[in-house]
């Protein structure tokens, strides 16, 4: 039993060490040559534009459900006109960043792990190295940059579409006038909330993409290994997003608010 725990701890420590090395080398790769610009552009397109539909749908239905649920409670106090304040604050500070990140974990986290995992088990990563290309610069740097910069952009879109979904429910289900709803939306927003809502996706995008790249590149064991890596990437990415959300929130509450 003890040796099992010891083995598990050693493996975990090695994993963390390899992850930190990958992150360090990735940052080094951003600021030194060679820099594969066309791969970066391609990944921005794949991760950003490619995830737009799923993020739009998630944001829209979350905003609508949020307005609908809040409307029920607020109606008991005759406070349905402030539903916009509730929707905007919840979407921008919490639901927009977290749900967008979870959607991205499912879509790009799994995709990156599966793609790099397949390349690893078919010797394509070794072939890249043998041809004189550093796989970190060619494969990891573009994906991490796209993750870091596209997650905030998609979160802004998700926030907006969520608030718009809230307006649809407020206007047609809760019978709140449009002007009242939009006035409530802006009144309930503070710059600190916006900063928090914009900072979180940078962290989430970084976590999702680096975890997926790390797991994908360490894939062993053929197609079964690729399946395992994909699952690990989604599970670890989702947990990292939720844990990261807590820590970023604590940092903002401690230092900004």
């Amino acid at each position, binding site marked *: 039993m003890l040796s099992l725990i010891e083995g598990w701890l050693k493996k975990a420590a090695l994993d963390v060490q390899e992850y930190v090395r990958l992150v360090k080398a990735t940052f080094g790769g951003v600021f030194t040559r060679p820099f594969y610009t066309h791969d970066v552009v391609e990944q921005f397109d794949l991760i950003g534009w490619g995830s737009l539909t799923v993020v739009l749908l998630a944001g829209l239905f979350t905003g609508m459900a949020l307005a609908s649920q809040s409307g029920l409670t607020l109606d008991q106090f005759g406070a349905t006109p402030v539903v916009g304040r509730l929707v905007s604050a919840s979407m921008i500070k919490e639901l927009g960043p977290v749900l967008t990140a979870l959607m991205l974990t499912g879509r790009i986290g799994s995709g990156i792990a599966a793609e790099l995992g*397949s390349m690893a088990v*078919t010797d*394509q990563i*070794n072939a890249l*190295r*043998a*041809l*004189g*290309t*550093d796989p970190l610069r060619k494969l990891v740097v573009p994906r991490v940059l796209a993750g870091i910069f596209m997650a905030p952009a998609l979160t802004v879109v998700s926030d907006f579409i969520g608030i718009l979904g809230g307006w649809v429910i407020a206007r047609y289900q809760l019978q709140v006038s449009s002007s009242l709803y939009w006035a409530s939306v802006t009144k309930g927003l503070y710059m600190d909330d916006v900063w928090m809502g914009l900072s979180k996706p940078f962290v989430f995008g970084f976590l999702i993409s680096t975890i997926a790249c790390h797991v994908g590149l360490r894939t062993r064991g053929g197609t079964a290994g690729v399946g395992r890596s994909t699952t690990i990437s989604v599970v670890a990415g989702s947990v990292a997003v939720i844990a990261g959300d807590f820590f970023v929130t604590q940092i903002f509450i401690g230092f900004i608010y």
Partner: protein
Amino acid sequence: MATELAPSAKEILAEPGAPVIVFDHVQLAFDEKVVLRDLTFTLIKGHTKIILGASGSGKSTALKIIVGLWKADAGVVWVNGQRVDQLSERGLMEVRSDLGMIFQEGALFDSLTVRENVGYKLYEETNLPLAEIDGRVKEVLGFIGLAEHIDKMPSELSGGQRRRVAIARAICFRPSIMLYDEATTGLDPITASTVNDEMIKLRDLENVSSIIVTHQLRDAFYVAEHMAVRDAAGAVSIVPATAAKEREAEFIMIRDGLIIFEGEADALRRSDDPYIKEFLS
């Protein structure tokens, strides 16, 4: 970083008979499993080393150590005058620029076309004009007889064609050393012959030094005992090798990470070692 070779070293490496790859008492183990116990051999410029052995005997490991994909636990490995066992990943890039490696199953990039696969290194790692790279890609694909497949994806090719595209990718940037890891394993005899002919042509017409890792005896002896000649009209044909040419191909038999035989094809056939006899039977 790779160190700049002294002019005298460069001259020595340019001479016929120069040692281009040297393995000196190389050892490697993964946890408890010892893969290479003590491997020592030298590849001479323009010659061929054929490494034979059962699966798991450490043949492919030796190739990966040469390219720097794995590091040896002990021993010294020289490639073109550079100690690859001491080089960083960045330093290895320079050594790899003169090494072409064919992986088991080809390891083609499945998201790229044949053209992009073959010209990968030139497109990505050099500043050559695109027209020049395209010309070289077409030339190499013509050399291996796959010019009409230039715009296909790897998934549209047969196993033999994929292996030949892998050869094209490895020779496109004109390396002076080729490493073949089970290049004909899993291919039918006719397709394997085509791949063998490519190896022979590269060695004899382009003066490429090669290490061939295989457990396909038929292919190994075919490459060792044939040579490529070009007639006055420029036509290339594969003919039985002369005695001098046969001496340029040496066999190495690895068993449990140790060399149990090193010598020419005839000596291998005449060996009294029971394991070798069983392996050859």
